[in-house]
Each structure stands twice: as C-alpha cells, then as structure tokens.
C-alpha cells in the first residue's frame, strides 16, 4: 500500500515536473522543475529498492548539478530565447516551419510505436519478477562489486572526473571577456 503511494507520488512528481521543464517560460523555473523531477526519480529508485542510488541521485543532482545549472543560467543572463515561439502547440519541433513540424510528429509517432512494440515483445520473452515491498540493503554489496568486479571502471571514473575537472576548470577560468584573435581581426578592418 505504502509502496503504491510512494510510486504514484514519485511518478506524478517526475512526469509533472519534467513536462513543466518543457513547458515553462522562465529558465530558472525550468531548473527548479528539473530539481523536482530528479527528486521524483530518486523516489522511484527507492521503490525499486535502490536506496543507495536514490540517495546518490539526491546528493549529486540536488546538491551539485542543479546548483551548477542555476549558476550557469545566472551567468548567461537567464534570457529565454524561445519566449517568442514558446507555445504549447509548437512544443515538439519548434523549428519554425510546417515541414519540420510534420517530420517531428511523424518521427515521434513511429518512434513511440516501435518502442512500445519492442518493449511489449521484450516483456513477453523474459521472466519478469513481481514487485515486492522488501529489499536487501545494497550499499555493502555495491562496495564489494565496486572493488571486485567493477574495480577498473571505478578507478577509471576517477580519471574521468579528473579530466572533467581539469578541462572544465581551464574552460571556465575567468579571463578577458574577448579572446585575442578577435581584437586582432578588428584591428585589420
């Protein structure tokens, strides 16, 4: 009973907030709705017994990614470029003309149908367990997996993050507002 309640709440939060991300005008609000959607997904993880993944989702996304997004929106002025054409009917392709609208709709339709077909075929062919409201604590087992079977990805992920840190720090390092070549080009004119 509680499981169903938790699932329904989380699912509603997720779907609602993600649609809101699509629909709202203000980018700042979109970021906040993304936060809601991510918390909802954390709730879904909890219903799946993935307690550690759920809390990680909150820790990384809420504590880190969303704040970074908010910062980025602030830094880039928070202007919403789509405000002119942002209407519910032109949501999906928004490429500005009728042909693209058509192509987009058709693609989405084909995609949705084939995906649905694929999933239904898949569900028919595999053995799917019933949802139960008990689970085992995962963190110890995750730790063991991380240092045994998955030790290489574990160590490599640290290198990946190091690379990301170095790269991002180089790119985002405060410098003059405009690079050198642009000024030189100006001088030539």
């Amino acid at each position, binding site marked *: 009973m509680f499981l169903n309640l938790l699932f329904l709440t989380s699912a509603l939060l997720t779907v609602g907030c993600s649609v809101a991300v699509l629909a709202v005008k203000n980018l700042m609000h979109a970021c906040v709705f993304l936060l809601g959607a991510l918390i909802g997904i954390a709730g879904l993880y909890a219903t799946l017994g993935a307690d550690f993944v759920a809390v990680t989702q909150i820790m990384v996304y809420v504590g880190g990614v969303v704040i970074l997004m908010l910062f980025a929106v602030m830094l880039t002025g928070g202007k919403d470029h789509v405000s002119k054409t942002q209407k519910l009917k032109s949501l999906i392709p928004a490429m500005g003309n009728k042909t693209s609208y058509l*192509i987009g709709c058709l693609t989405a339709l084909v*995609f949705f149908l084939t995906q649905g077909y694929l999933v239904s075929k898949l569900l028919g062919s595999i053995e799917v367990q019933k949802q139960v409201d008990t689970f085992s604590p995962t963190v110890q087992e995750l730790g063991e997996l991380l240092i045994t079977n998955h030790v290489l990805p574990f160590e490599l992920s640290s290198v990946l993050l190091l690379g990301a840190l170095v790269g991002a720090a180089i790119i985002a390092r405060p410098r003059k507002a405009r690079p050198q070549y642009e000024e030189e080009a100006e001088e030539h004119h």
Partner: protein
Amino acid sequence: MEYTIANVAPIFLAPFFAFALNCLLIKKAPKLVDKVSVLGILVAFVFAIRIAVDFTGVANTDYYIHKVFTWFDLGETFKIDMGIYIDNMGAIMLLMVTGVASLIHIFSTWYMKGDVRYERFFLYMSLFTSAMLGLVLSDNLLSVFIFWEIMGFCSYSLIGFYFEKEKAGYASIKAFMTTRVGDVFFLLGILAIWHTVGSVDFVSIYNAVQAGAFGTTVSFLGMEVGLAAFAGVCIFLGTIGKSAQFPLQVWLPDAMMGPTPCSALIHAATMVAAGVYLSLRMYPMMVAGDLLNLIAMIGGITAFGAATIAMIQTDLKAVLAYSTISQLGYMVLGIGVGSYNAAFMHLITHAVFKACLFLSAGSVIHTVHTQEMPEMGGLRHKMKWTWIAMWCCTLAIAGVPIFSGFVSKDRILGDALYTALHAGLGYKYAVPALLGFLGAFLTPFYMCRMMFLTFHGKPRDQHIYDHAHSEHLKLNQNVPLLILSVFTLGMFFSGSLTGLGKIPAPVVPTEWFKTLVDSPTNNLERFSTYTKQQFGSVDTRENRVLEKTVYDSEAMTGYAGPNPDNKDGLHHAHVEGAIASVVIVACSIFLAFLMYIRGTIDPGKFVKMFSGWVTALKNKYYFDEIYIDVIIQKGLLKFNNFLAYVDMGLYDRYAIDGWEKVSRTLYRASRWFDDNVVDNTVDAFGVLAKTGHAVLRGLQSGLIQIYFIVLIIALAIMTVWINFIV
C-alpha cells in the same frame, strides 16, 4: 640474535639511501649532504657491529646467513638468484669496511672542507661504500661483478675528481681501462663457471668443486686447459686488475691524483682489497685448478718489485701507493702459499694501518700544501698527533713486534718458508718466499725513510714550515687517525702482545682470528648439507651452524695450504720466519736511521752503485712504456688499422656502395610509377572528395538541433529495422 632481512640489508641499504637522498639534496640542500652521508655509513656501522659481535662471539664454529630471492627466472635452465651471504669472514670484513669508511667519512668533512665539489665527493663516497658492502654481502659471482663495476665507476669518478687537471683525467681513464682488462677475464671466468655449474653462487661452486665438476678440460686457443684452471685464472686476472698486481699494477700509483680520503678508502683499504677478497672466496677453485704456485709467484714479484720502486719515490702519496701494491702482493703471496687465514688477516690489518697512513698523509699535505718529501722535514714539532699516529702505522707496516703488521705478515712469511722448505713440494716455492723476505727487508726501510724525511731532521724548506699551522686535537682531523692507530696494535688481532701466542692479553680472546676464519677447503663436504633461506624468513644462530672439522687436503686435487697436522714443521718454520723477519726489520730500520737521521751513509752512493737499476726504478720498470709503445702502438693499433681497412676499404666500398647502385635503379623505376600511376589515382580521389564535399557540406549546418533530429531519425529507423526486418 635473530636474522631477518631487516637487520642485514640496512648495512648495504643505508649508504645507498644516503646516496639516493643526496642525489636529490645536492642541488636543493647542499649543506645536508655530508651529514646524510656520514649518518648513512654510521647506521651501517651499527648494524655491522651487531652482526660481527654475534658472529665472533663463539669461536670454533662456522656460521652463515644466506638469504635469496629470485632475480629473474627464464625457466629451468636460466634462473638467477640474488641474495645475501654472510659467514665469519664476511662479518669481519663488514665490520672493517664500515668502521674504516665511517672514520674516513668523518675525516673527509675536515679535509674536503671548502672544496668546490664538496657535496659531490660525499655522493660518490656513499655510493662506493654501499657497493663495497654489497660486494661483501653478495652470495654469488654475478652480484659481486655488478658491485665490482659500480666500485670501478666510483673509483674512476674519484680519481678524476679534480678534472681541471689534465693528469687527473688521464689517470682516471688509465685506471678504468687497466682494471677493465682484468674485468673482462673475470666475466669470462663467471661464464665458464656458470656454464659448468649452472649457478654462480659460492656454495654451489664449492659443492661443484667437491663433486669434481671441474675435472673436464676445455679447448682454449688450441690448448687443452683444465676447466678449473681456466676459470680460476680468469677470476684471478680479475683480482690482478683490481688489486693492482703484476703485471696490471700500473694504474694504482696514478690513482693518487684523487683526493686523499678517497685514496685511503678506495685505493688502500677497501676496493683494492676486494680483489684479494674475491680470490679468498674462490680459493677452492684456485686449489682445484692447481694455481697456487702461479699466484704465489705473482704475489712475490709484486711485493718485491713495488717495494723497490717505493724506495726512490719522493712524493709522499706515491710511496704509500707503492707500499699498498707491495702489501697487496703479500696478501696474494699468502693465498699462493695456502695461508688463507693469514692472507685475510693481513687484508684486515693492512686496511686499518694503510687507511691511517693515508689519512695522516692527507693531514700533512693539507697542512703544508705540498706532497714532495724533500720540501718537508721536522714537521713533528708542528703535527704532534699526526706524527704519533703515523709512527704507529709505520711500525705496523714494517712488521715490528707488538704491532699488527708483525702478526699478519709474519704468518704469511712463515707459511711461505714452510711451503718452500718443509712441504715437500720441491723448490717451486723458494722464489716467492725469497722475494717475500727481500720485500720484508725493503718495507721498513722505505717507510722509515718516508717518516724521517717528513717529520724528522731540520725543515728543508723554511717557508713551507713557517706557513704550516700548528695542530690541535680536532674531532674530524686527528681523532679518526688516533682511533685507527690504536687498532694497529697486534693484540686486537692475535690476542697476544707479540703475536707468538705466548702472552695472553686480557681483552681479546687468544687467537680468535685464527680459529674463526677457516679455509673452505678444510672441509668442503660440509657445504653439501647446506640450505638456502628465502627472503622474509627468520634465522637464528642455532639452526645455521656448520661443524668445523679437521683438515683433509687429500680431497683436493692441488696443494691447499700448510697441513696443520704437521705441527712440528709448521712450528719450526714459523719460529725461523719470526726470528728472520725480526732481524731483517731491525737491520732495515737501522740502515734507514743511519742514512736519513745520522747521515753516516750517503744514499747517493747507493744510487751511483746501482745507477742502471735506479734508472729502471725511476721509470717504474718501463711498464707504461711497454704497454703504450709495444702493446698498444705496435699491436692493438695495427690490429685496429686492419679492422678499419676492412670496414672502410672493403665493406664500405663494395657492399654499401653496391647497394647504393641497386637502390638508385629501383628508385628510378618507382619514381616513374609514382609520377604516372599513383599521382593520377590520388588526383582522382581528390576529384571524388571535392564532389562529395559539395554534397555533404549542405548537411553540416552547424546547428545542434538539426544534428539531433538526424540522430533521432536514424535511431527511429534503426528501431524499425530491428523490430520489423531482423
């Protein structure tokens, strides 16, 4: 005491880490370098004391530590272990090396102070010490060879330490090249042993000798040579090179271009003794190859010849250098007459007094800023402490009773006399014994001459005398000398004052040295019960004891030394030898006294009398000239020219130039192909790419969302394909 790798390895590792650390410090913190070096060697000294106390605590036992690890393993046939091997001899050697080296390090902080390359000197000294200790700890010939070469490199660097001087540079090259001759043969010997035994560690070699593995012969330059003799000669050639024996002795006098403390450590106390040490380790091999007579001859010739040259030298350090060669000759003579124990004893006593002598000479040179004895004289008033220390050592090297040189040298001479007279080997050994006694007459003479010229009489150059500073007792100048000179007393080695074993001294057990160090040939069988320990295991003394057994020379193929069972003859020869050498020493010192203090006898008369010989002495028996003019100019250079002709005249002209013609032709053909066929093909691709570019360019709009739509469409098509077509 329990032995693990943790309390053995630091002996070698402490100086090595000091070296490694100094490599980092030398640029950043040069002030710390000398302290780190001294600390490193002192740590090694402390560990060596622990081991030596444990080893020498119980007499009449043989005891070893042997720990190995696999160095590399290329299957059954090629597997090399590295390891640590310590027995009684090694323990005493470790104590000597660390003790002398630490005193020399301390002395160097005074002597080298203010030198431009002060830090670098300590760097090399630490590396050298660690290599020497590594050599002593080695359990096999291969690691001996590695450390041997590291020492050679350090020696080379230190001889050429003052590379601004052209002579120093040449001297270092000479030393390096001359010892290389011996090293090549040494390596050859190692290969011969490895080929025969399949292993190069000492114990395996002993066991192989015992099992008669060296009984076969090999064909060498058309001659059938016994394998043992071949390998033994090769290894002994290594000794000849390193220990500056005849005929490769030429490098050692020139090596005195290096700083005096390095001469003391490397060219007097340790490195040159390492050659003798190697011969001692390989003693069963020498015996099996029946090489002792050859060794004795070479030792005798070196001992006597070097002593004669030393008589006419005027350079303080040159006298000491030739005396070093001469004393090393005695050690080799000792090995040659089967006097294993006495040869090793002489190695130790010589290391102590010769290090002291060199340090004293350094002290004098540093004070008066000259090395020429004719410019000195009367320095005893100014340098009281150095004078005392140096006299102790002079008396020791001269072989005056009470001092250590008497104990060790007399035993070598006694054994030589016994071998010549009583061993029943004919008169093959008479010549070495005679040369030994002649050398024993010359040694006190030239040493006393040096002392009289330096310290006694009137100052011959008043200017230099006045400029010399009066000496005060300094912790890093005289104290090391005095400590060393205390150990020139014979009782520390024999336990009795005279060395004859009559008056027991209270401090040291009587004849501990004789009972502790024992020739492996006395009972080679015991090594067959021998087990190696892997690294990481713990040893105690109790489970590693080897029983000492009585002498059994019948098992050996060659003459293995004086038979201790023949007590009568041995005793007889030793008493005769002792009396003879005491008389000889007394005469010799008296002669020197008359010549240089009293002036009763004019040395010039002797020079006139033996003018031809003196000219030969001045030219060091023309060895350098023979090597350069005859061997190098006439032999090697011609051979070199011939090879150059083969290379340039034949190979270059025909083989290489011929190839050039062939390739030139091929090049022309391929160029035609390239111009006409390949280029056109490439152009065709270019046209294709140009056309394709025009088409594909339209897709590259630069708009992310267009790309994304293409991606999605592709994904959709793929999904459809997977679902409905596959």
